[in-house]
């Protein structure tokens, strides 16, 4: 087998070991680990979902009946996946819930009810890791926080994630993704500066990136904790990851620059402060002038990268401005603000009579790196993503054919995989409470009737 792989050209080799059609034939990375997800919205749920993709048994606990709030926020109130639960057949779950809850089991439990405590401790006893994102102190007030959990299960790895963290002057502040972006700093230097393409608004990132990306780090913390437990200490652990801090952690040279020079990193639009040419340029023509979608009617955009001396000279010749090629021959010359203000408009002048596809053909033909800006619809139909299994249609056992994001990365031996996008609220009460907690069907029905689960 390996000999055969050794002889393949590199690309074929990658296609073989990362083949999306053979995922199910390979072992799962985290098989045998159980994770409790006491979470809502995105930040906590996605941290658990990443582990679920790797094969951990993730049990998501929601409030009985309606489930968590993220199920109920849908863009324009338009797309829904029915039903939200067997108690609410007329309502649906939003696609926003999908990406953050892959492969999980869905149970319900009302933590505040006294009867719930014992059930919860039962779950904690048989769990390897747990994540929650209620406001700091909430779980401790209900006596199900770290202090209580480590008494019940000294080997449990807990992770709390949320806005500002459990101690310090801002410990009671609530947070959301865009508050993280705003208060952490990345919001302030994303967007156009005043005077160019717009009035210079700072801009949010389109996705809930501070939720999803800090979720990756929360998930990493849990994995590191599990690794340390299983190979070093046999001890549990407690992590706290603050969303705002993530946003500040991503500011690159921003803090060193302020701390030493007293200079505040500011917005620089679609260009790059440190490398030139590396930016997004406007093409003059739309690829879909007759579309009824406003974002498709508008002009196309293309990302151009020609930052080595050689590539830059080539690009300037291509756009008919060899003078600029000579004027800004070195990296230091062209990365200056004034130089960028001459170079990018010259490129846009050249692109004035082209669509992004034409521009891409011209650049590629000349050996310049370029990437047209794809709309979400175009990305969803890009062969590359479908072939690699990053996006695609999925025959979900509950919701039928759904189009969805699939796995976060590729592994040759224990690849992450998608088993179901999510399930209705309380769908697995029977399965989990029987198998894990040893409750009988009758007890489960009784608890459901009392809305404890």
């Amino acid at each position, binding site marked *: 087998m390996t000999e055969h792989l050794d002889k393949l050209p*590199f*690309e074929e*080799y990658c296609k073989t070991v990362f083949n999306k059609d053979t995922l199910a034939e390979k072992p799962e*990375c*985290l098989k045998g680990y159980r994770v409790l997800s006491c979470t809502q919205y*995105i930040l906590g749920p996605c941290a658990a979902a990443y582990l679920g993709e790797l094969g951990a048994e993730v049990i998501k606990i929601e409030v009985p009946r309606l489930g968590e*709030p993220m199920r109920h926020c*849908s863009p*324009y*109130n*338009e*797309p829904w996946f029915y039903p939200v639960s067997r108690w609410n057949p007329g309502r649906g779950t939003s696609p926003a819930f999908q990406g953050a809850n892959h492969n999980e089991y869905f149970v319900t439990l009302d933590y505040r009810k006294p009867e719930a405590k014992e059930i919860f401790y039962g779950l904690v006893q048989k769990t390897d890791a747990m994540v929650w994102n209620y406001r700091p102190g909430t779980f401790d007030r209900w006596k199900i926080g770290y202090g209580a959990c480590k008494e019940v299960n000294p080997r449990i790895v807990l992770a709390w994630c949320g806005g500002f963290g*459990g101690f*310090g002057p801002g410990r009671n502040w609530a947070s959301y993704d865009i*508050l993280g972006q705003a208060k952490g*700093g990345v919001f302030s230097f994303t*967007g156009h500066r005043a005077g160019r393409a717009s009035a210079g608004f*700072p*801009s949010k990132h*389109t996705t*809930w*990136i501070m939720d999803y*990306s800090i979720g990756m*780090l929360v998930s990493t913390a849990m994995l590191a904790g599990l690794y340390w437990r*299983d*190979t070093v200490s046999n*001890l549990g*652990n407690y*992590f706290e990851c603050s969303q705002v*801090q993530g946003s500040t*952690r*991503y500011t*690159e*040279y*921003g*803090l*060193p620059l*302020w*701390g030493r020079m007293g200079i*505040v*990193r500011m917005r620089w639009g*679609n260009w790059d402060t*440190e*490398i030139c040419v590396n930016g997004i340029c406007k093409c003059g023509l739309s690829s879909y002038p007759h579309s009824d*979608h406003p*974002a*498709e009617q508008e002009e196309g*955009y293309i990302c151009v*990268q020609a930052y080595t001396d050689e590539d830059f000279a080539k690009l300037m010749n291509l756009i008919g401005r060899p003078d600029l090629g000579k004027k800004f021959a070195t990296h230091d010359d062209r990365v*200056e603000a004034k130089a960028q203000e001459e170079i990018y408009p010259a490129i846009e002048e050249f692109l004035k009579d082209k669509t992004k596809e034409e521009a891409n053909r011209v650049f590629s033909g000349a050996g310049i790196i370029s990437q047209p800006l794809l*709309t979400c619809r*175009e*990305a969803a139909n890009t062969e*590359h993503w479908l072939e690699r299994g990053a996006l695609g249609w999925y025959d979900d056992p509950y919701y039928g*054919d759904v*189009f969805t*994001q699939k796995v976060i990365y*590729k*592994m040759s*031996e224990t690849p992450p995989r998608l088993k179901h996008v999510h399930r209705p609220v309380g769908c697995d009460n029977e399965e989990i409470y029987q198998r894990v907690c040893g409750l009988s069907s009758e007890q489960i029905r009784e608890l459901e009737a009392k809305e404890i689960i």
Partner: protein
Amino acid sequence: MSDDLKKEVQEAPLLWPLNPIPTFEEVYDPKICTEASREISTVFEGWLHPKHEMAKPEALGKIRVLECGHGGLQCNTMQGGGYLAELGANVIMVEPPGGSPIRKLTAFGRKRYMFKDNINGDLCGGTFLHECRNKQSITLDLTSAEGREILKKLVVHADVLIENYAPGQFDAWGIGYRQLSKINPRLIYVWNGQKGQWGPLTDQPGELYPSSPCSSGWCHATGLPKSFGGTPLRAGERADDILCGNLTAHATCAALIYRDNVSGKGQFVEVTSAEAHLRIHDYAWGWYGVDGSSKPRYGNWDLAINIYSVNPCKDGYMMVGGGHDRLWYRIWKTVGKDRPELEDMILDEPTLRVVIDRVGHDQQVKTLVCLTDWMKDWTREECRAKLLEEEVAAGGVSFLDEVAEEPHYKYRGMVRGLDTAHYGKVLFCGSVFYGHRTPGRVKDLGRPVGFDNSDVYRKLLGFDTDKLNELYTKGLI
């Protein structure tokens, strides 16, 4: 150190903090916080405050990582390696002789924004210093066969190798996963890139951020709609390299667990930033699947939640969030204290009464125009104080000077200065991994080129002074 340089160090103090860091007594003053709140917070503080971190073990203390991501200007391996190093792994950065080209990057090419090495006077950019925390720096010429032989010897001692060279480059050089796994079957080999090392849009040599968010629909969906005067936007920071780094740390930890618990063997991992963007692009794909919709740009508002947006106020931009009834009515109660007519206008509007009815575009416009009409009279801090009274999540868009001075961040040690051996005092953001037993931590920031050559090559490969000198002379390290 020459006298001139000594003087320069003294004259480059940290301009931080401008205001003193709050003390324990100030934060938990009984006048401003309840007994119960103080009690629980001090428990958290005892478990988690970074001031205790150096006395605790490190989760990945026994792991060694080779970070070979410095052949070009992609910054993704630097991020992933940084997180692993915060968690305690011994991360060895392998740079080309002369140093990583990323060291030279500085905003607008301005040398005055760079950090000067007190000892040899070399300049280093802030990004490199900030991200290369806790790492050892060695140099090695991977373009030469002899250099690659040395890398193979280092791989024997490594658990993880991370690289971001052009697709297939390492394989062609005889140091790809196929070859290295024969030398060290326990090796976890992670490739980082923009769009992938196979498939129709395979990365071109030299491809950088932000090509990946452009190819995933992310840039097209960021920014204001054209009708509002906007265009598609990239993130100010290298969001895609950062995501790729986050997932590299994640994949590495997962593969280590599998290796040490189950298989005893490493594996080949591929992490790309475009796929990270696709994976986290919230409802875009599910929505497309339902009715073919293409997620549009919606500026600083959110298509799925009303109110969850950033809008102008008196001195900048202000984030307010509260989509469901509990918070929604608190927001309007706050507004109503100053502008009762605005509160009435919202409460009287029948189409704004039910949560899911509020996300229509007209409803968003109506809501946010009213909210902004109230906010325009108040500064970010005033708006925030008023909204916090009602426990609404709110906050101004902060510039980095304000972030650096935020008392909460200073108190938690999240923003702090580190006295580095070569670059003087540097302000940085601490590790995200606050932990009880194995906290992440920052022990050092980026180091000078080849700083650890002697240490690493002697310790791992047994090279002596003669051998090292020979390698220096040949230009291999």
